[in-house]
């Protein structure tokens, strides 16, 4: 810490130039509603914390990683075997990515079920859904970078799924792959997407998301708002922030435990001329889609089964993106059980299909 005299001088210097009083005033008045759903507020902050860890560990990995089909696998192998604490940095990056998607999903569905997307927070929801999409794309592009067998085939399947879209599909697959097949060109592309394009998009949209949250404050449950009773609140600083820190420390403890005791595996190097091995699977958060594609028959009527599946997922995503504008009853301040049931349906579908992906017999 700075000595008090110096801190005072420094604050006064800044105050004269940028008027810190406005910020102080904002912090003094910022409050967080207290009710029996307050606990869900912490998951957004945890997601943000895990994202910060991703940025830091990602930058560290950049120092040794080499993005080419000939060297990618070897460079990750070098990181985890030769570089001091390389195994830890890489393991934290992989585990934190997965925890981040998990807390992000909890955050997303808690906002959904508490209807916090209703007016005036529609844009906060839309930016949040965009961030979710970016996070999934982060996961998909990062998965390929070690250039191992599992990731190679997952990327083949994933980019081919994009090719199922009518009209633009084939060209989209070529753009994603940097050619007709998954090759070193795909690796270069995914690398650029993972370390430049997505971080740029994420920073911009995340900034907007956080700005909206600050501007509008936390949403309280509808019943509480309509009851007319003065709702209980707690000051953001320091009460809520300190609680937030407990959430961050919990996330850090879980992360450290997982990374140290279950180091992320590297697997075998990708070989484009080897058959896809048994037990091939994507990351857990794509598992429900993967499992759905297994169950769909080759043809449903005249249409390819996989096209139906892909369109279904797109429509599901579009529904979630636009839900503040579709849920008219909530917008009018009425109860809307239909959207609760749709939410329950979506969560159940994701959970059941994901579990099936891990326990259902695979074939061989």
């Amino acid at each position, binding site marked *: 810490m700075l000595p008090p005299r110096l801190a005072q001088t420094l604050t006064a210097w800044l105050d004269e130039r940028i008027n810190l009083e406005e910020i102080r005033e904002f912090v003094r008045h910022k409050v967080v509603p207290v009710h029996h759903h307050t606990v869900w507020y912490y998951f957004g902050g945890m997601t943000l914390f895990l994202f910060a860890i991703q940025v830091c560990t990602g930058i560290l990995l950049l120092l040794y990683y080499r993005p080419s089909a000939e060297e990618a696998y070897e460079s990750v192998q070098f990181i985890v075997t030769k570089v001091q604490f390389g195994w830890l940095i890489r393991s934290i990056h992989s585990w934190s990515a997965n925890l981040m998607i998990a807390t992000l999903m909890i955050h997303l569905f808690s906002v959904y079920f508490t209807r916090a997307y209703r007016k005036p927070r529609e844009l906060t929801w839309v930016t949040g859904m965009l961030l979710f999409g970016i996070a999934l794309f982060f996961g998909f592009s990062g998965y390929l970078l070690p250039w191992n067998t599992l990731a190679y085939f997952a990327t083949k399947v994933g980019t081919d799924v994009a090719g199922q879209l009518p009209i633009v599909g084939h060209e989209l697959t*070529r753009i994603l792959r940097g050619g*007709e097949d998954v090759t070193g060109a795909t690796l270069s592309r995914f690398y650029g997407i993972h370390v430049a394009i997505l971080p740029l998009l994420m920073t911009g949209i995340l900034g907007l998301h956080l700005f909206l949250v600050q501007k509008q404050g936390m949403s309280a449950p509808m019943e509480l708002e309509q009851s007319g009773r003065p709702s209980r609140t707690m000051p953001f600083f320091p009460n809520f922030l300190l609680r937030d820190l407990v959430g961050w420390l919990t996330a850090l403890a879980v992360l450290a435990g997982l990374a140290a005791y279950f180091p992320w595996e590297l697997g075998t190097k990708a070989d484009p001329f*080897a*058959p*896809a091995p048994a037990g091939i699977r994507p990351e857990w958060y794509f598992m429900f889609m993967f499992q759905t594609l*297994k169950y769909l028959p*080759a043809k449903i009527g005249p249409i390819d089964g996989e096209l139906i599946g892909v369109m279904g997922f797109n429509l599901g995503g579009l529904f979630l993106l636009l839900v503040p504008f579709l849920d008219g009853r909530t917008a009018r301040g009425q109860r809307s059980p239909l959207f609760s049931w749709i939410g329950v349906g979506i969560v159940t579908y994701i959970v059941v299909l994901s579990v099936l992906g891990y326990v259902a017999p695979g074939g061989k």
Partner: protein
Amino acid sequence: MDTPANSRRGFVNLLLGSGFGALMVSVLYPVVRYIIPPESGEPSTANVTLPWKPSEIRVNTGRIFKFGTQPGILVKTPAGELRAFSAVCTHLNCTVQYREEKQDIWCACHNGIYDLNGKNVSGPPPRPLEPYRASVKGDQIVVSKGA
């Protein structure tokens, strides 16, 4: 109100606006074209000679070989006949393999199954595997397009 001054301002705005629009197009067009990868210059492969002798291949086995940039699969059926197909699953692009115990061609990604004629018999694949012609020329196995 459509005063001369207003319409003059409108005209200048239109000019500036379309100039800016044209600038954006001239910047974005090369970027979009740049992102789309060029067509591969490699000629499409018509036939390959495999690196194995016919006598090396055991009955009821399958091997993956390089057919240009794509994987192919060579199968020696239980009856001793050599057959070749593209090894690219018609469902979502994974590479298939031969299962000796079930005597079929199997894709591990989504559990798609083909018979020994390359026909899709179970699971999600919508089409048969592309067949190739496998022929024995002296001590060599030559695989060519079209069966």
